[in-house]
């Protein structure tokens, strides 16, 4: 895995993008939970 990512650096960039969207997704999920509670 490490060697693959070392050789194909573009996948490291892809992983960082995924991390950012995962973080924003978690944030959205928490807002959604608050909305559910209000309902």
């Amino acid at each position, binding site marked *: 895995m490490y060697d693959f*990512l*070392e050789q*194909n*650096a*573009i996948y*490291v*960039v*892809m*992983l*960082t*993008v995924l*991390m*950012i969207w995962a*973080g*924003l997704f978690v*944030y959205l999920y928490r*807002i959604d939970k*608050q*909305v559910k509670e*209000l309902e």
Partner: protein
Amino acid sequence: MWWKITLFIWIAVLSTIGIVTPIAGSLSDLAMISQWGTEKTIPVKFTVSDRGAAEGDGWLLHGRDTNGSEADFHFPSRPEGLDAAEGYLVRARYDRDQHRVEVAEVLGDYPGFSFPFIPGLEERAKIIFFHVPMSWMTVVAFLVAMWYGIRYLRKKDMEDDFRSAVSAGLGLLFCILATSTGSLWAKFNWGSFWNWDPRQTSIFVLLLVYGAYFALRSAIDVEEKKASLSAVYSIIAAATVPFFIFIMPRIMPGLHPGSADDTSAGPVVSSGGMDASMRVILYGMLLGFLVLYGWLMRIQNSLHRIKLKRADAAL
């Protein structure tokens, strides 16, 4: 509605351009890499100026890079579509004995649009479109938290306190994302996830400072007291933000691009440091994430208003 769709398309298109655009170096990059005596090949783009002839079992042609420098390019076999080709994007190394470029692999035709080759970063340089907006949004969100903190202290409006806390929360989210994406990048660029580089140390302190902000908020039960104390705290904390993000990592020598001893790629600050095309995409992504931040703030605000209305109705 339309601005939300536009925002999605904006971020999607810029991300795609940022990821897909090939990295292409010049002959001077090749010459520099060859000085290090490695067999390493790098992507180079050049236009064909003379279609050349067979040489041994390969093909030798003459080409010119974007800076106007010329060199002989030796291909292992006759390159495909040579008669019509304007130029090529190849992986190659410079052979100092033969004074020619040895092509290892043809990556494609001459790309009209490409990002420059940055030694030591290469493809990983593209992280700048995602990681840097995160840390800049951290700064924006913390400064907005300070702004609403000041407003709360002047007007004593609980709405401002709420906005200040939401903005600090978003700032913390962006700060965590900047740290974790940077740490992943560090694993491949520096060899380890965490090096206590000045940049990493300063963002770690920033995380602690704003972690303490939320610890402070959750420790106080009286709403007014919580609001005024956290407003004061957010003002003091925001005063440290420019220092930790913009100043300390730049005046200290370190591994991060833009450190005091970085001669090649102090991307955004140094004059002529970053390629114009990369700069446009970086600023475009910054704008995209800025609007996304505004959107999240708006959602939280409307949610808060509904909560208040419900509370009023319950009384």
